[in-house]
């Protein structure tokens, strides 16, 4: 996984709450057996609407999504994270993420930055005044920033320490766990014999 320290890119306001994973990528797009190529399914239904934000050329190179609360609810499909990444997003800012989505983001290298609901509103307001403006997600200092001077937005975001550390270092979770192989083997030796097996 690539390291993530800070990212600055065009902010895209997605003014909706409860953006579920079926909206992020509908099930018909989940048939691929690769991790790439899912950008065509990203928000597929909404992209039919000419007024949808991603159809606005201002946001063509958008890479920081600023969304309403309860982002990523529903299905466990990591394809939702891949679709956002395949499209070009590096970070999503919301006041509340669904657990599985947040976990998947951390594993796949997308930053899910949880902020206060007021910060989302301020970023939306700022983006309305500055369409196509850039938003910074700084993982090192855990801050989101947009603009300068009077109307600048700057606030902290939440991300758990462990995920932050792994993203900053670009570490592979499986590799870390395999370093504890002896602990796993010890644990297995103590499992009750009546626990079910499939073989």
């Amino acid at each position, binding site marked *: 996984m690539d390291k993530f320290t800070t990212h600055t890119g065009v902010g895209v306001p997605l003014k*909706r*709450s*409860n953006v*579920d994973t*079926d*909206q992020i990528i*509908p*099930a*018909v797009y*989940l*048939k*691929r*057996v*690769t*991790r790439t190529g899912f950008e065509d399914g990203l928000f*597929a*239904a909404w992209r039919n609407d000419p007024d949808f934000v991603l159809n606005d050329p201002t946001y063509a190179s958008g890479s920081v999504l600023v969304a*309403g*609360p*309860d982002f990523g*609810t*529903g*299905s*466990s*499909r*990591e*394809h939702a*994270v891949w679709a956002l990444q395949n499209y070009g997003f590096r970070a999503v800012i919301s006041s*509340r993420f*669904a*657990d*599985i989505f947040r*976990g*998947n983001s951390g*594993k*796949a290298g997308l930053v899910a930055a949880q902020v206060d609901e007021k910060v989302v509103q301020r970023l939306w307001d700022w983006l309305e005044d500055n369409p196509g403006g850039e938003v910074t997600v700084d993982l090192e200092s855990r801050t989101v920033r947009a603009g300068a001077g009077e109307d600048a937005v700057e606030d902290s975001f939440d991300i*758990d*320490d*462990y995920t932050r550390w792994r993203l900053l270092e670009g570490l592979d*979770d*499986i590799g*870390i*766990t*395999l370093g*504890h192989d002896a*602990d*796993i083997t010890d*644990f*297995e030796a103590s*499992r*009750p*014999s*009546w*626990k*079910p*097996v*499939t*073989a």
Partner: protein
Amino acid sequence: MGKTLSEKVWDEHVVRSAPGEPDLLYIDLHLLHEVTSPQAFDGLRLAGRTVRRPDLTLATEDHNVPTVDWDKPIADPVSRTQVETLRKNCADFGVRLHPLGDVEQGIVHVVGPQLGLTQPGMTIVCGDSHTSTHGAFGAIAFGIGTSEVEHVLATQTLTQARPKTMAVTINGSLPEGVTAKDMVLTLITHTGTGGGQGYIVEYRGQAIEELSMEGRMTVCNMSIEWGAKAGLIAPDQTTFDYIEGKPEAPKGADWDAAVAHWKTLRTDDDAVFDREIELDASTMTPFVTWGTNPGQGAPLGATIPSPDDFDEPNDKVATEKALHYMGLEAGTPLREVKVDTVFVGSCTNGRIEDLRLAASILEGRHVADDTRLLVVPGSVRVRLQAEAEGLDKVFLAAGAEWRGAGCSMCLGMNPDQLAPGERSASTSNRNFEGRQGKGGRTHLVSVPVAAATAVRGTLSSPADLAALA
């Protein structure tokens, strides 16, 4: 201080814990299906890794398979490739697979319990959010993403931060004709879709104890719909009776040892939950959704709400968007909403008890003109059992379609989908925009409401049906 049930199960599975790090949790059972596993197996190959415990791993085909012509090659080439990829991966890595056509094939969350692989006190994961279903047995069970699937394949463990604990106590008894589905839909509308976020929830109280295992699975299944990490129910005699004699259940002395341990899996009297919610089952009624998330629901006897009924600006906007998508007018009685397709099935309500209940209402009645009823068993075993009991004949005589096992119309992926603008009453768990097919409109309902709706053609409960002569 004592421990809660979920803390007991969690603690029994901690391989390693260190300050500032998530726990490393051992996984007792890893379930796989065709959609969320191919990239995980690819990852193993790339890194030259193996499956650590194929003997704790089980795969089935469910999401992307047709429910007709299951003895023929899958027509859609992309779907066929995905299913064939699972078959190749299972063969290459030595994982037991129940493919389409196999007598144990079915929805992954129906197959685990019916094989007896789902047992109290286990940790169970699957690349599917409704893995929470297995919590009905007193297991910690939750959905994971594909990177985590790869992690479990390679290590049989997961790194997990310890969730907070919540108790949902449902007092009293459900009135006649009100089901576990109505109970959980009522709960989700009460809490909102994010209400459970960060918690493992223990469902308890008289109404939960009185549920069958099927009903408990329905409740736990929908834990994820209000954002909970997992939902579980303390195992009791109902649980033990259900498991005993199942193919993979412990036998003889193992059974005795297992039950002795399972009996310890209860929340201690002096344990403290981080949060508690109480509801009264005796006031619950048939409950349906009108919007585009499972928290947008109301009693069947109510009218469609207006955005003005909500105080929160986000709720107002969400209601407006939902009504627009659903093609509904505020103020319309829910009972007047006309339905095109009724779907009985899914891991929420596709078990034998559900089909028996549907058949008991449909017997001697007929599906309304202009309405289609699709009955889809959750597994091949459920299908065979239903056919042995003659339920298929009841469904066919009522004018329903009787299908093969799979996820079917629960998600718009396999050939069973709603057409744009089509409206369904569905016993599944998600009413998101387009969930059952692009442009499709979903009302989540219980099995009795689904059956009665099929007969009347509008959202209905069995109480609305004319008595049989």
